[in-house]
């Protein structure tokens, strides 16, 4: 191929993006406030916890000026629960464990009891309303009021953050070896699920079916992107003649049967 760069973004680029996530630290030294492009950082005073971007937290950790408080999901207990959901839960046999809830979205148990999701707006310092979405949610900050009823869930950047924390701050985590083992198991279960998706991909290529990728992390997507898109593209090419025949048949039906709303809807769908 003439274009030397591979499709999609590389693992180090994904990791770079993950470094913008906010994490909680326990400082050991005072640090003056910083004016960063991503927003100002409050002055850090030792006994008080602070939220910092991951890259800055890692820097302070390497200089032994702070300890990182691990997010609640990066704990052997939570990971064991997630692995159990991934591997043994019937509802998630072909799906991935649910992503963290959005603000205002009821958790899994409340949903089962019939709670409706309500979008809860947040306000900027200027008083403007906005709705936070995944990359900007504090999913990796250690929560002071940890809710034990909430099912733990993996955030979007779980692969990158966990491997960076395990590497730089393994002494701040509980039982890092166990965490490492569990993370590896979870990754393997999820990768197997994603590849099993190839079987239903042709349904996606001919309209109708699809593969749910809800809850899949950035790194996992980056890894499988080349393979999955190549596979779908090829299935589409093989099925092109059949698709053509189907379209002609439908056009004929429409010509005979006059205007019909459902057909029109399907036609719109196919043109995507």
């Amino acid at each position, binding site marked *: 191929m003439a274009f030397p760069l591979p499709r999609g973004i590389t693992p*180090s680029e994904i990791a770079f993006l993950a470094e913008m996530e906010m994490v909680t630290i326990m400082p050991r030294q005072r640090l003056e406030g910083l004016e960063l492009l991503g927003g100002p950082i409050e002055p850090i005073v030792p006994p008080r916890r602070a939220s910092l971007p991951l890259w800055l937290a890692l820097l302070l950790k390497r200089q032994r000026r702070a300890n990182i408080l691990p997010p609640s999901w990066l704990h052997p207990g939570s990971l064991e629960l997630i692995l159990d959901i991934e591997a043994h839960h019937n509802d998630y046999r072909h799906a991935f464990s649910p992503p963290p809830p959005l603000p205002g979205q009821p958790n899994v148990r409340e949903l089962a009891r019939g709670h409706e999701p309500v979008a809860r707006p947040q306000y900027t310092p200027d008083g403007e309303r906005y709705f936070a979405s995944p990359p900007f949610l504090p999913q990796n900050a250690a929560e002071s009021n940890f809710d034990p009823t909430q099912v733990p869930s993996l955030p979007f950047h779980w692969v990158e953050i966990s491997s960076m924390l395990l590497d730089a701050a393994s002494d701040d985590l509980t039982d890092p070896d166990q965490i490492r083992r569990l993370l590896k198991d979870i990754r393997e279960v999820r990768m197997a699920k994603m590849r099993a998706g190839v079987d239903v991909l042709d349904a996606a290529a001919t309209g109708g079916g699809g593969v749910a990728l809800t809850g899949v992390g950035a790194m996992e997507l980056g890894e499988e992107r*080349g*393979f999955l898109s190549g596979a779908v593209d090829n299935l589409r090419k093989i099925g092109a003649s*059949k698709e053509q025949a189907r379209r002609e048949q439908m056009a004929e039906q429409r010509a005979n049967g006059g205007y019909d709303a459902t057909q029109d809807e399907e036609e719109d769908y196919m043109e995507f």
Partner: protein
Amino acid sequence: MSYYDIDSILTDAQKLPCTFELEVPGLGILEGNAGEDIKAGTRLDLPLWLGEMLSIGARLGTSRLVTLDMPEALSERVLNALKADPRTVDLRSLAPHFYNLSERILELFEEEEMVDILTDTFKKRAAEIADHAHNSRGAVGEGVEFLRGLDETERQLFRAAHDRAKEMRAWAGQVKRK
């Protein structure tokens, strides 16, 4: 497929069995005897691009010059083998650009069943390719036999999956070294 795509050009060059319907003066060179005429009913293997051109004469009002047949790579025998077990068939020895070729053939012939068989074949083999690609030993080990039988499209797929897995491992190792 773009104009300069080498795979597309090579697909065009694959041979297709054709039967001449008419006598063509002076075209004996195709058969190897230059200067002679080519008789009606002669069977010849012509490249895909030429066979395609000659066979669509019917549309221009003249009777068609040649009729096309299924290439050996998509014969009944091969399709039966693919139906039985897609994983054991050596597609590369049948045609180096097996899927590209079948795609072109399916444009020329209406073969509903063949589409189903090929789709199924591709899915089963893609799953196998993904498994081999994520194996850290890559293309060595017990999978050699299967991987040697991949056609060009499947090789590209293997390469995409394998490179990504390799980059991931490189990144994970890099994080540790820092």
